[in-house]
């Protein structure tokens, strides 16, 4: 049955209709949902973009980055500064992405020189240095008290509430970010990322510079972080040194792993995890937030290394195992074999003949 469903999903027109339905639902949702639900969805969008950036450097390129929240904070501060200076909002957005990107480039240029885990060891410092830095540069950042900037109140002509207006801003930017990331990881650069993640020496022998690839991935991740910071300010309208604290950076990493490393859809799930689970644990007992986060992260690493996004695949595999071989067709038998070969050598993956199938394959790259 699942094979039949998969075949249907592969037809182009089905995909187009599906995409249209999703788009209509997303556009209509804020108009019918209560304000609180909208705000939650907006925050999911904000963090999904940050997780998406982290996914590019970590999930796809295999470089542990513990400082993504620093770039989110940087983007938020630049946005607040630009808005308070009365810049055009598009200029503010570009500045938020550009400043984060340049700082990310500088960090990566140094960190990527050391192989292995040096990027992790250097980036862990970013939020820890970032918090006192934000307090110190109080002319720009408002010091410990933080800084607020309102620019996302709904204009009169739209007839919308503020939360609906914010929803649309986040929706546009996040959708753009996701489409960009999707085409990035499926193209030339995506293959370079995968090659570097699998084996740097092999990548180098294929003519891919691991150093440049790592710097590129890190810079792109920082730009996404900056964009997420812009969205953060659009949604929350306030930022303080607390925004870029060490704990949040770890939460972001946990969200990426739990959503699904090396997966675009996993980034969205990661954003949802980042917003929902603390909300849930805070409602029960605020002290439980950290411990539940650690426990969930470890549990996912043990039981579901592909993250939440791999649940359908795991379920499919299990049902196939228990359903026996007779009921499923030739295609269903061929699929697991293809899956294993991709997991061991994603760098040498043959170019798939059917374009839509590539979607699933990209998402399946995540390692053991």
């Amino acid at each position, binding site marked *: 049955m699942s094979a039949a469903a998969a075949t249907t999903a592969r037809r182009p027109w089905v995909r187009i209709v599906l995409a249209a339905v999703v788009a209509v639902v997303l556009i209509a949702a804020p108009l019918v949902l209560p304000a609180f639900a909208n705000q939650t969805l907006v925050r999911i969008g904000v963090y999904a973009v940050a997780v998406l950036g982290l996914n590019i450097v970590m999930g796809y390129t295999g470089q542990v980055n513990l400082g993504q929240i620093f770039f989110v904070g940087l983007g938020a501060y630049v946005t607040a500064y630009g808005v308070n200076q009365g810049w055009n909002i598009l200029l503010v957005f570009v500045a938020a992405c550009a400043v984060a990107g340049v700082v990310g480039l500088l960090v990566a240029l*140094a960190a990527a020189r050391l192989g292995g885990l040096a990027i992790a*060891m250097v980036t862990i410092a970013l939020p820890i240095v970032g918090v006192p830095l934000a307090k110190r540069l109080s002319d720009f950042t408002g010091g410990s008290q933080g800084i607020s900037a309102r620019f996302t109140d709904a204009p009169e002509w739209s007839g919308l509430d503020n939360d609906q207006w914010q929803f649309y801003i986040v929706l546009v930017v996040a959708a753009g970010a996701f489409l960009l990331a999707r085409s990035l990881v499926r193209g030339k650069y995506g293959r370079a990322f995968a090659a570097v993640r699998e084996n740097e020496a092999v990548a180098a022998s294929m003519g891919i510079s691991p150093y440049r690839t790592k710097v590129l991935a890190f810079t792109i991740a920082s730009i996404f972080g900056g964009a997420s910071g812009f969205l953060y300010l659009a949604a929350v309208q306030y930022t303080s040194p607390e925004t870029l604290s060490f704990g949040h950076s770890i939460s972001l990493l946990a969200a990426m792993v739990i959503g699904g490393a090396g997966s675009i859809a996993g980034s969205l799930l990661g954003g949802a995890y980042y917003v929902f689970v603390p909300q849930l644990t805070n409602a029960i007992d605020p002290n439980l937030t950290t411990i539940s986060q*650690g426990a969930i992260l470890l549990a996912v690493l043990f039981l579901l*290394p592909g993250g939440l996004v791999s649940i359908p695949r795991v379920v499919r595999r299990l049902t196939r195992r228990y359903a026996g071989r007779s009921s499923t067709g030739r295609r269903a038998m061929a699929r697991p074999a293809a899956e294993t070969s991709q997991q061991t050598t994603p760098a040498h993956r043959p170019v798939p003949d059917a374009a839509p199938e590539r979607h699933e394959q990209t998402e399946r790259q995540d390692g053991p």
Partner: protein
Amino acid sequence: MGTFIQLVVDGLATGSIYVALALAIVLVNQATGLINFAQGGMAVLSAYIAYAFVQLGLPLVLAILISIILSFLLGAVVERFLLRRFEGGDPDTAVVVTIGLLTLVTGICAVLWGYNNLGFPSLFPLTSVELLGAVVSVRSLATAVTIVVIMVVLQLLFLRTKLGLALRAVADNPASAAFSGLPVGRLLMVGWGLAATLGAIAGVLVAPQLTLTPGMLDTALVYALAAVILGGLDSPIGCVVAASAIGVLENLVAVYIPLIGHDLKIAVPFALIFVILIIRPQGLFGRKVVVRV
């Protein structure tokens, strides 16, 4: 001049804490090829355990000894039941596991003892002595001496005992060590146990100064990592030198360069790292690794 010596001595005292954490990180890395980001968190847990036994009315020294033994067991258990599954696999996944462990351990401390700062009794008297024109607290002096003693003991353990030889063999090449009949798994557990013990000592030494909170050693962990990068992951001596140097340097910079000051001094080791990574990517004392396909 008096201020200068004072700053250097204080810096060495703080640096000795980073030395202990950095050594623990190098120890684990040498044995397993991993960076244990939970090292600081585990050390905090050890300090809390000692605190709990003090609260029960035990003498401080006894409480610390119990905590050290428990930490050794904890380290071994963590290796056996958590890390073993990820050893030899993707190092990035293993690192994420240690970050999960850091979050979990911090969370456990928070649930059991809360986020409030708790006063931890000092092992050493709070009086101070004159030394080369500088006033040095006995506590800092004793802390530094303790760390030096531990380093010497470790060095003797590694170079003069059978266990040390076996640990080095496993670190150098687990596969050949296994062929030679060494119990690699058990030795890895011992390696993690020793690292946790080092962390525990760092924890109880620094707790009186910082007061006990779940995130107490997050900053120290960052310093220790900086020291490890600077000193080279494969050089215990290198990271001892680098950690002490960082301790001294940050103290000097905080006072003599007002632009940086006390709040931003943590940026100093990283500015240093940037410069050094550009010139010498393998670290000051590290060996250059040749990569083969």
